[in-house]
């Protein structure tokens, strides 16, 4: 009998321990608002170039349009993803993944685990890959992707990416029907906290702000500013006059791309972006992502000769 985790945080801790044991660097969340773990530069940028890479991390993610004031059993405007990126993808990537399910208490001999076709494409990142959504007893528990392109660049070698939607997965493992009822820490702890104790109120506050209060003029300006700053950073000469070194600022530029992407999501939630404008905004973010990818592959981490 597999020893079952008892709380949300225990699932996260077990994933951290498991992937650490598989040799991944356990990184911390990126300190910016992003829509998914993929946006973390440890995935987007590090999937590029020929340098081997293995990292795992939790990434708080924000999807303003999914806000439901904390009432929906599993929709949240702020949630956690667990992300693993290994480059080149090891031959036993599927087995490694199944090992992680075992680590969090999913016994493959008692469940029906399936790899169902799901090709991944991110129009905002100019990225795509092939893979599956992984089902456990009919529920999607992870996304599994072999990255083929990011920011318009072929991924050589190919990185294998895993994304776990932590709340949904944890609810399943813990047998909870409403996310807010899920134990966050040990249910026997002196101060036992449920997910709702931590996030119920913030879900309400952000839902209201996302949908009705966020100042769209300010946001539109933020978008334009981030776009301009990204371009300005990339336009700077490669050689820094102060240090005399070649310093291409791919990461600071990419931060602006992340910012623009999130602002776009907020504007979308405010309902001020029409169907036709939508495509144009997505295209603008993609252009930034591509420019950042172009810059990153010119840097040592991106595989350029030092």
């Amino acid at each position, binding site marked *: 009998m597999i020893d079952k985790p008892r709380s949300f945080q225990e699932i996260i801790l077990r994933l951290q321990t498991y992937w650490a044991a598989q040799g991944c660097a356990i990184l911390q969340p990126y300190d910016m608002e992003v829509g998914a773990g993929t946006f973390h530069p440890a995935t987007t940028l590090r999937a590029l170039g020929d340098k081997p890479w293995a990292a795992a991390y939790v990434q708080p993610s924000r999807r303003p349009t999914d806000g439901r004031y904390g009432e929906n059993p599993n929709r949240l405007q702020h949630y956690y993803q667990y992300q693993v990126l290994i480059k080149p993808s090891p031959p036993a990537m599927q087995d490694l993944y199944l090992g992680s399910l075992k680590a969090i208490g999913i016994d*493959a001999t*008692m469940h029906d685990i399936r*790899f169902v076709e799901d090709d991944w494409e991110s129009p905002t990142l100019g990225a795509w890959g*092939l893979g599956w959504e992984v089902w*456990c*007893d009919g529920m999607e528990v992870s996304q599994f992707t072999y990255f083929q392109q990011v920011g318009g660049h072929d991924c*050589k*070698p*190919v990185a294998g990416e895993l994304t776990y939607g932590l709340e949904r997965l944890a609810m*399943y493992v813990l047998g909870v029907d409403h996310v807010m009822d899920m134990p966050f820490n040990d249910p026997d702890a002196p101060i036992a906290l449920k997910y709702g104790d931590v996030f119920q109120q913030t879900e309400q506050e952000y839902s209201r702000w996302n949908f009705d209060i966020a100042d769209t003029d300010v946001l539109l300006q933020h978008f334009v500013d981030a776009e301009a700053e990204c371009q300005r950073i990339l336009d700077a000469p490669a050689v820094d006059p102060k240090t005399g070194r070649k310093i291409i600022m791919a990461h600071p530029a990419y931060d602006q791309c992340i910012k623009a992407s999130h602002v776009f999501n907020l504007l979308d939630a405010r309902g001020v972006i029409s169907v036709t404008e939508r495509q144009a905004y997505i295209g603008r973010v993609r252009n930034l992502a591509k420019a950042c990818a172009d810059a990153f592959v010119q840097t040592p981490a991106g595989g350029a000769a030092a």
Partner: protein
Amino acid sequence: MPDLLIELFSEEIPARMQTRAADDLRKLVTDGLVEAGLTYAGAAAFSTPRRLTLSLDGLSAESAVFKEEKKGPPVDANPKAVQGFLRGLGLEGTDSWYASQIDALKNGEVLNFDSSFVTTQELKGKRVLFATLEYPPRPAADIIAEVLENAIRNFPWPKSMRWGSGTLKWVRPLHTILCILIDEAGAEVVPLDIDGITSGNTTRGHRFLAPDVFSVTSFDDYEVKLKRAKVVLRADERAEAIWSDATTQAFALGLEVVEDRGLLAEVAGLVEWPVVLLGRIGDDFLGLPPEVLQTSMKEHQKFFSVRNPKTNRIERFVTVANMETADQGATILAGNQKVLAARLADAKFFWENDLRVAKAGMDPWLDSLANVTFHNKLGSQKDRIERIAALAREIAPSVGADPDLAEQAARVAKADLSSEMVYEFPELQGLMGRYYATEAGLPAEVAAACEEHYSPLGPSDDVPTAPVSVAVALADKIDTLTGFWAIDEKPTGSKDPFALRRAVLGIIRLITGGDHRLQSFHSHLMALIADHLGYSDQEVEQLKELMTQLENVSDIASELSSNRLTPEKAKYLTDQLRSEVGRKKGEAQVLGEQIATKLQTADQMASDLLSFFHDRLKVFLKDKGIRHDIIDACIAMPGNDDLTLLVKRAEALAATLATDDGENLLQGFKRANNILTQAEEKDGVEYSYGADLKFAEDPSEKALFEALDAADAKIAPAMANEDFSTAMTAMAALRGPIDAFFNTVQVNDERQVVRRNRLNLLSRIRKICLSVADLNKIEG
């Protein structure tokens, strides 16, 4: 004769690609082997989520001897060229060696090597080199290795990928290759190394139930061992097992599984070891429309629906697991039920929200359609609804529908596009519209039209017959077509992103199926296209305003805004406008010219659209066994924008030409027409003065006069009544008299009076026949 077994073992292959891939593997390998000189007795290919398998039996052990002849340059050509030819044959040597060989060939000697040789032969006065090459037999294994590597490297996956550090492409990472050649002595691995993946004689069983590696010695051994390792190799066997188990379990409860072939095939491609589990749908959800339950379960979960035949409700579901567990699937089923409950809770939430809006009259939905772009050049869905409503009202009398109901139906038919349910499940559009219109208390005809106005979608889809549905369906499609024609987004080649061909076929089937007659269809199309082009009453009013002082033009302007456009009127007005406005200056001139241009463009576009209808009609009638030339003969007649009439005419003509009389009449007509045309060309006149009986000499000539009179008397009234069958039977009855006439009478008589009279008689034949259809267009 050896057998061959190949298995390509990979990570999970998308279900939708498996069958095709197995077939491609069979084709690529067998084609390659045959091309290389091997033969085989039988081939069979199989697929599971993780493997493609090919089994060949009765393969030849080596390739047949293969001979080939190659012509080279003349022996006394530039020695470099001769040397190049010899090197191309595989003959390598020093320059002096080549020189000596060339001398020998010049002396008429034969150059032998391996089983091949080179000689010289006389060709057009030159001595030219000829090589006769004979390739020795090659062992099957060598050829298989080559062919399989080639097949793997060039496999036609719809989408393929790289993985790790490799460059090989496969649908998902390829792990192992099993490739064995089996003869009396046993099984031999065919050695192969593709980017580090080496071939062997082993495979694995089910991912969880039997993951260990095992070796195999033949196809039978392979299939048996796979089954022991919890893998059913054959997709049809898996599908059959699923279906039989599902129906048995449902039957035991007095229920039936809703048949879904596509889903069955897909599910069979998601499992290697199917385990059927029958689950419950929570009571809370049984009140949802059955289609909602079915769609939600199928789309999200790939569940089959299980119906209670007594209540006709969907009460249970079947899920197919890929796993046997110690608890007989209890945990798996519980998990699936939970996921389903969450899905259906969403669906129920949508349904209940939608019902509230529907019962209150659907206004918020209709309003929000103003924000939904139909096409950026054709306005919003709301604009479109306005147009369809007006059009449905106009069409209604022609199809026997109440105009008020037709308009009302058109106004709500797209409302469900704003509903939450259709947002979630776009494939339920129309059907939800029907539910919501019913809930809104709208008349049953209106509710039905909400669902049926999209039909017919495919060529085998049912055609609605309820008049209100027909009116809205026609209006919807006609608006789409005229709109896309106006913005020049017509289908080209294989590209038809807006499904305009389907819309045209839909209209043809709606109109001809119901024997409906749309009056002045061509003019109608033109007027609608003109509307799309922005020809508006305001514009005309503005022109009128500008021109009030100018008598002639103000008449034209009021004419423009008073009645429906027709091509004739448009042409007249265009000319008038241009001649009047041309002399004026300023705004009136510009505006008048704009309107004239729009009218002219609309007319051209309408003609183009109509001929697109005719092209589709040809395809439609061809499927009914009517030849394209018969349709052409009918399209050439006036009134060809009346599709029902056109089809009737074509059917009658096809039936007539299928008779002996009809076939012979056609020959008679052609003969008459040929003689007449030649004479008219030669004489430079048209013989249409009317023949006179008094110049008739031969009895057969007189008889033809009588027969033509009789035919005239029947054909003219029959045509006026659109009774093509009577008209064409009367026409076909001319066959005897025409044949008799040609058998006994010489048309080109020496006496000019007699000749002219006979030519005029032929002219009557032509006239009568052409009044029925343009028989010139008929082939043969």
